[in-house]
C-alpha cells in the first residue's frame, strides 16, 4: 500500500463526496446531524479499507456503507458520544417543502433510501436491491407505494 498516495486519494474522496453523502443520508434518516455523524463513520470505514479495489465505484461504496449504517438498528449513537443539542427538527427541510418533508417522514427509512437512490441518483431498481440487500420486487413495490403517497402532496402543491 502506498501510504501517501492512499491518504491523498482518500482526502480527495472526502472533499468530493462528503457533502453529497450527508445530503443523501439526511433525507434518509431525517436529521442532518445524524447524517453528518453517519458520513463520518462511513469515511472511517473507508479509511480502514482504503484504497478500495480499482474496480470499485467510490460513491457507490460510500452510499451503500452509509445507508447500511443508517438503516442498521443496532447502530446507535455512542454512549457519552452525544452532541449537546440535536437538530432533530429539520428546520432546513421545513423551510423548503414542509408538506413533502412530512410525507417523506411517514415512509420507512429504507423506502426513503430507495427513493433517494433511484430518483436523485439514477440508480436502477436492481442496483438498489443489491445495495440494500433486498429483492428487486421489494424495491419495486416500495417505490410504487411511495410514489402513490407522495403524488397527492406534490400535485396539491402545484395547484
Amino acid at each position, binding site marked *: 500500500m502506498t501510504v501517501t498516495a492512499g491518504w491523498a486519494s482518500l482526502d480527495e474522496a472526502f472533499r468530493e463526496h462528503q457533502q453529497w453523502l450527508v445530503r443523501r443520508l439526511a433525507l434518509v434518516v431525517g436529521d442532518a446531524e445524524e447524517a453528518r455523524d453517519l458520513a463520518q463513520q462511513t469515511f472511517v470505514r473507508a479509511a480502514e479499507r482504503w484504497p478500495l479495489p480499482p474496480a470499485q465505484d467510490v460513491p457507490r461504496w460510500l452510499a451503500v456503507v452509509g445507508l447500511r449504517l443508517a438503516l442498521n*438498528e443496532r447502530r446507535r449513537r*455512542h454512549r457519552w458520544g452525544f452532541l*449537546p443539542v440535536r437538530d432533530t427538527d429539520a428546520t432546513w*427541510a421545513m423551510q423548503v*417543502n414542509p408538506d413533502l418533508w412530512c410525507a417523506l417522514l411517514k415512509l420507512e427509512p429504507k423506502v426513503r433510501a430507495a427513493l433517494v437512490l433511484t430518483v436523485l441518483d439514477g440508480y436502477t431498481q436492481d442496483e438498489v436491491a443489491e445495495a440494500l440487500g433486498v429483492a428487486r420486487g421489494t424495491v419495486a413495490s416500495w417505490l410504487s407505494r411511495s*410514489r402513490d403517497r407522495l403524488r397527492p402532496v406534490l400535485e396539491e402543491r402545484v395547484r
Partner: protein
Amino acid sequence: MSDDFDLRLRNELRALAEAVPVNGPLSTMPHDRSAMVSGLPIAPRVRARHDASLGLGAAVVALVLVVVAGFAIWSGRNAVPASSTPSPTPTASGCLVGGVWNNVAESRIQAFDQPALEKQILAAGGRYDWVEGRGAPDTQAQIDKFVADGAKVIVVRSVWSLDDPDAPAVLSAIDRAVAAGVAVIDYDGFIDSPKALLVAFDPIETGRIEARATLAAVPKGNYVILKGHPEGQVVPDLMASGIHEVLQPAIDRGDVKIVAETYIVNWDPYTAMEEMKSILSKNGNKIDAVIAESNSMASGVIAALEEVGLDGKVAVAGQGGGDDWWDLNHVAAGTQTVDVWTDFRLMGKAAGDAAVALCKDPDISKLAGTSQLSLPGHHQVTAILLTPQAITKDNLNLVIDSGWLKKDDVCASIAPSAAPPACR
C-alpha cells in the same frame, strides 16, 4: 403525466437535499414543534400507556404517536438477562414512575434501557409512563407535569451539555419536584444536581479498566490518550482521572510515557483518525498504546494505524461496549485490545430498582448502595455507579452468549487461523 410527476419529485427532492446543512453549526431547537411529524430515523416514536386513567394526556398529546408496530418491536426486545429476575414481592404497589427520555431516537434506549427499567417497576407493582423529551427547554415542563400527575419518581435522561443555557431551568424543575416529595433519577446524564440520584456506569472505573487492560498488554512504552468532547461534559475528565490513576505508577517507574493527550471535539471518529495520523507522524510512528475514551474514537485510531501498517501491533483501548458490532469485530480481529462493555440492560435495571426503592422513601440519602461522585468543576452528586466489563479476545463470548450481539457480526471476516475462541 407520470413523467411530470417524476420530474417534479426529482426537483423537490433535490431542493431538500441542497438545503441540508452539511457543515453548518448545530441549530438551536425551536420551541414550537407541535406540528412536526417524527423525524426520528430509527425507532418510531412510541408512547407506552400502561394505565389509561393516568390523565397525562393533554400537554403531551402533540408529542405522541402511538405506533402499534413500534410498540410490538419495543416489547419484543425486552431482552433483560436472566440474572435480573425481579423480586416477586410487590413493593411499589400503585406507585407511578415517570420517564422523560431525551433523544429516544437512539434505538438502544427503546431496545435495552427502557424495557429493563420498566420491567423492574411493573414487577414491583408500580406503574410506568413516559414521554419523549425534546431537549432541556421542554424537560422542565415535563418534570412539572409528572409531579402534578402524582408521580413519586421521575427518571430523566438528559442529552444536553452542562453549560446549556436551559440547564438551570431543568435544575429548578428538579428542585421543585424534590421539594414536593418526588424523587428524581438522573439516568446517565451527569446533570449538575445534588438533589437527583445519578445512575450510570462509573466513568472513573471505566477509565481504570481501559488502562489496566492496556497496561497488561503493553507494560512499557509510549502511550496516547484521546479524551472526549472538551466542553460541557464531565465524563471525559472523569474517565481520564481513572486512566491516569492506573498509569501513574508505571509513569513514575519510567515504563510508560504519555506522548500525547488530547480532547476530540464531539468524540468524532474522523477527527480522532486525523489526530492519530498527526501524532504518529510527530512521533515517527513510535507509539505502543492508545487509550481512547470511546469506541468511535478507537475506530478512527485503528484506521490511522492500518494506514501505516501498525494495526494489531499497537494496543488500542475503547469503551462503549459494542454499541456497534463493528467495534467488537475489531477486538475479534485483534486490532482493538479491549472494549469496556457497558451493558445498558444493567443500567436500566439498576435505575428501575432504585425507582422502586424511592417509591417507598424519596430521600436519596437513605438509599442503599449509593456513593458520592464529584463532577469536575461542578457539584458532588449521589450516585449508583455500575462497574462495566472489560471485553478482550479471550472473553468475547460474553457479549455473544448474553444475546447482546450476534456471533456472525462479531466474528465477521475473521480468518479461522486467527480466530479467538469465541469465533471458532
